[in-house]
């Protein structure tokens, strides 16, 4: 097995453990878009501090690990138009679908939720087609 696959598996187990802590501890589903979105549109005002605590942990942990393990680089595009379009699509899409890779993907699939599975199939298909079109046909990304 390639070392990056092993790191993927270890990181994945930590992500699953994170979801288990939030579910068994606070009774909440770990969905990043829901946690952020509830702060942005006010729907999560009641438990805003637990949302902020979660996001603070997610923001700080990589900074602590930086220099010890992993790649502290996103290697993201610097094309502002692509970044803005992508951000708008991710923001609106996840809130309309009520979930993203963590909520529908990790937490939904693991409880055999049909909605989680269908959402995951659609965002992976859409992502794959978008890459195929914008990278291999148009050569933009």
């Amino acid at each position, binding site marked *: 097995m390639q070392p990056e696959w092993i790191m*993927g598996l270890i*990181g*994945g187990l930590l*992500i*699953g453990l994170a*979801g*288990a802590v939030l*579910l*068994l*501890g*606070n*009774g*909440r589903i770990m969905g990043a*878009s829901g946690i*952020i979105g509830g702060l*942005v*549109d006010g729907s999560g005002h009641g438990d805003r501090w637990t949302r902020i605590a*979660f996001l*603070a*942990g*997610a*923001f*700080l*942990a*990589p900074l602590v*690990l930086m220099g010890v*393990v992993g790649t502290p680089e*996103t*290697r*993201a*595009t*610097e094309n*502002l138009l*692509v970044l803005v*379009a*992508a*951000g*708008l*699509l*991710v*923001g*609106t*899409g996840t809130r309309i*679908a009520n979930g993203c890779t*963590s909520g529908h*993907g*990790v937490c939904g699939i*693991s*409880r055999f*939720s*049909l909605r989680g599975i269908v959402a995951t199939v659609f*965002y*992976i298909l*859409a992502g*794959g*087609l978008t*890459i195929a079109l*914008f*990278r*291999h046909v148009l050569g933009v990304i």
Partner: protein
Amino acid sequence: MRLLLALLSGALFGAGLYISGMTDTTRVQGWLDVFGNWDPTLAFVMGGAILPMTLAWRLTRVAGRPVAGGQFPAAPMPELDRRLILGSTLFGMGWGLAGLCPGPAIASLGFGGISGIVFLAAMLLGMMVAPGLKARLDSPVPAE
């Protein structure tokens, strides 16, 4: 208690995303790029994450209630609707374009530079306008 558990969960989440390489947009795009140099790492991350979560969902049946009080989430809704399909499709398009989704956008904010900040700002704007779009999707289509 709730705050500490949320902080711990967030830290594990951020550490997992970072260690797994999911804050590296080229890895995420590499997984979606089946016609290019395909990178299977994301499948290992997903698989690794689903394992403990499956166990956690089973434990909710035994535990009765969460450690910090309250209730476990209700059973998932069985029905599919156009919001789920349309929203997930839009999300997937953005995910493919930049290689970022909401979790990694937060986890990489500290080292992602201007690109990460621009993406996050646009994502937050999208989340702000989403409730209005959602309401419009719910209203019946007027007859021609």
